[in-house]
């Protein structure tokens, strides 16, 4: 049994989330490496992006390569690798959060990066090793061939400490040797064999120290594995918090909204299931009763009949009002804090600018750190134009890449629809369609264009370009320069081209076709006959 299993990615490299159980990604952190037990798994498992979702931990490789021959030398790690990457490209692997027993964080020290260690629980019922009957014929026949005793099978048995016979769990003495068995409520002192209560620290008869006062008595742990995540790009604390929150929330078990919990409370107290079904907001789904810590302040008198319906309406309104109020107070508090933060960052930026000329080297590194963290926050307005790096590539961060991947998925959808839409679209059109599809959390035009320019580096088959006239387009590989020119040359060799037929053939707007032609002429692919606006194969370069 292995901890990781393969996860699905979309064509653009984004994680496929389970919509049915409302899985959502809480945190993403790039530059995370994987360890199995103590073994650092080799490339490509040493660099990837970790996504903490409400149900899983998904790790996406930064570079998808073939792992047919990766070996680490350790047998268990090798089996893990063989299971994950049978011979094709590795893209993403995941662990279900409900298999994690514990997680803890080790901070980085000197050259080792911070690590989160996960204790996992096998789903196997028991280790296959110790068999209770020495010469049982097969697993199905339960009678010992030598002595005829029927041993209890392993899940419901407890081995006797003295003679190792498998007794029933409820037995207090061993059926074979009459040794008093330890049960969940008693322990046997090893020196004088008196049965003490399980939480006793010293034996009542001989004062033998049974356990340390600080130690915690754990039930026997089934065979487990350890997985470590190494955070080489930082973000370990935030990821640890996110994992902890997700483990606590246990989204795979519980109901989500407090509204449903509140509304299900009058249902839960009824004894009449028919009335409960009538009044329940979600038919066929009775929620567990409210936890005592949840105080909704609702009046639960007479929830039946018209009066009950009216009461329920009022309760809903009250709840909505409370939610709105709390939301707005939060919002106002946020705005005040943001205002403070902006003032603070402006003041610091002004001070920085004043002292960069005279600062020492340690100051310079601090200044650089401050600038990079301001940029990461997006508070670029407080930095002067001179502070921003000149090359945009230096600040391409993962947000751009994630947005670009989302855009690529959307483009697949747009271009797959056909309807005469060729595989090239103006950025303004795409921006409108994209934001419309999003509905909320819309993207600014600047961010959209920045992400579009990253598309080419992701190699998802699309790229963004600015044509000579200034029009910005996003297109599939078919309209890349090489393929476009080849197509045009072959077509022009047969007949003279004009813009309208080209637009019809490519499925693009006439204006866009005209610009593509201009682009082709500027590169010498075809030549133009201006008075008639026709395009011919370039005979001048043939001679």
């Amino acid at each position, binding site marked *: 049994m292995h901890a990781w299993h393969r996860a699905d990615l979309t064509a653009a490299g984004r994680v496929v989330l389970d919509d049915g159980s409302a899985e959502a990604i809480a945190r993403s952190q790039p530059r995370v490496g994987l360890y199995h037990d103590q073994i650092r798994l080799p490339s490509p498992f040493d660099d990837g992006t970790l996504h903490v979702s409400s149900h899983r931990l998904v790790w996406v490789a930064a570079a998808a390569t073939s792992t047919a021959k990766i070996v680490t030398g350790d047998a268990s790690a090798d089996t893990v690798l063989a299971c994950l990457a049978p011979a094709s490209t590795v893209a993403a692997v995941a662990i279900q959060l409900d298999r994690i027993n514990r997680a803890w964080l080790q901070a980085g020290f000197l050259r080792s990066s911070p690590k989160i260690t996960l204790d996992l629980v096998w789903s196997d019922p028991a280790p296959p090793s110790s068999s209770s009957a020495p010469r049982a014929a097969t697993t199905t026949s339960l009678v010992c061939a030598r002595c005829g005793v029927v041993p209890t099978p392993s899940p419901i048995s407890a081995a006797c400490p003295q003679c190792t016979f498998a007794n029933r769990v409820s037995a207090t003495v061993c059926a074979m040797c009459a040794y008093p068995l330890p049960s969940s409520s008693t322990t046997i002192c090893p020196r004088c064999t008196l049965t003490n209560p399980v939480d006793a620290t010293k034996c009542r008869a001989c004062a033998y120290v049974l356990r340390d006062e600080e130690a915690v008595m754990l039930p026997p742990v089934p065979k487990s594995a350890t997985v470590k995540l190494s955070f080489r790009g930082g973000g370990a604390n935030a990821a640890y918090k996110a994992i902890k929150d997700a483990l606590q929330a246990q989204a795979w078990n519980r109901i989500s909204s407090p509204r449903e919990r509140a509304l299900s409370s009058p249902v839960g107290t009824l004894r009449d299931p028919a009335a409960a079904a009538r009044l329940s907001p979600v038919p066929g789904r009775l929620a567990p009763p409210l936890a005592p810590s949840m105080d909704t302040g609702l009046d639960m008198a007479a929830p039946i009949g018209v009066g009950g319906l009216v009461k329920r309406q009022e309760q809903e309104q009250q709840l909505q009002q409370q939610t709105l109020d709390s939301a707005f107070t939060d919002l106002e508090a946020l705005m005040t804090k943001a205002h403070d933060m902006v003032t603070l960052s402006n003041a610091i930026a002004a001070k920085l600018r004043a002292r960069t000329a005279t600062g020492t080297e340690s100051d310079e590194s601090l200044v650089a750190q401050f600038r990079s963290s301001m940029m990461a926050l997006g508070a670029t307005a407080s930095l002067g134009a001179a502070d921003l790096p000149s090359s945009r590539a230096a600040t391409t961060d993962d947000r751009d890449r994630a947005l670009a991947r989302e855009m690529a998925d959307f483009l697949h959808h747009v271009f797959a629809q056909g309807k005469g839409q060729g595989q090239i679209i103006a950025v303004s059109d795409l921006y409108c369609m994209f934001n419309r599809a999003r509905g909320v959390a819309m993207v600014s035009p600047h961010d959209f264009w920045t992400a579009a320019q990253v598309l080419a580096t992701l190699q998802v088959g699309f790229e963004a370009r600015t044509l000579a006239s200034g029009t910005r387009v996003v297109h599939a590989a078919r309209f890349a320069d090489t393929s476009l020119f080849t197509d045009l040359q072959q077509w022009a060799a047969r007949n003279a081209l004009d813009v309208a037929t080209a637009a019809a053939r490519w499925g693009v707007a006439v204006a866009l076709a005209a610009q593509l032609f201009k682009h082709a*002429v*500027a590169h010498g692919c075809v*030549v*133009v*006959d201006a*008075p008639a606006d026709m395009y*011919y194969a370039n*005979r*001048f*370069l043939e001679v």
Partner: protein
Amino acid sequence: MSTNYAPPVPFEFPPIYSFPPFFTLQPHAPSRDKQVTAWVDLIRAYCTHHRVYRLSLNASILDLPLFRNAALNRSVSRDMLHTLLTALVKADLAEWTSKSKTHVFVYWKSLSEWSDTLVAWAKDNGFANTVVTGYEVRLGDYVTDQEFYAMDEAVFAKVVAHLDHQRRIVMINPSSNVDELGFKIIG
């Protein structure tokens, strides 16, 4: 055109002349260079055939069969013509008449070639070492079958000046009127 020379056979245009984009100056630089080179060759051939000594940037020149293809209904634009003439000058096939760059003399034969032609004619026809007038050489009865018959006056003056510079003639009567020039070709 300054002469009314009617060639015996019509000029045969090259196939590129029937290519409509030939009449549009291409934006792509390498294509444009090839296009202009083709035009320069065409202009030179045409001027040789029709004995054209001058070209000027005025409206009527765009009606020349050289610059207008009636079958395609395409003609060269004025800007493009300026470009072509500049290229012609650069190729040493023409010379601007004045600083204002509106006229060119077309040297479909270069000045030194003309000089050689004149001297060769003089030697072959017994006019070496005799005094001849400009009129005789340019428009006389003995030269009607020569290439330089009815040469443009200004061009002729330049040829004579070139010959003088080369000391292949002796100037007897320098005159501003080309026909009254008197010189002796040294044979």
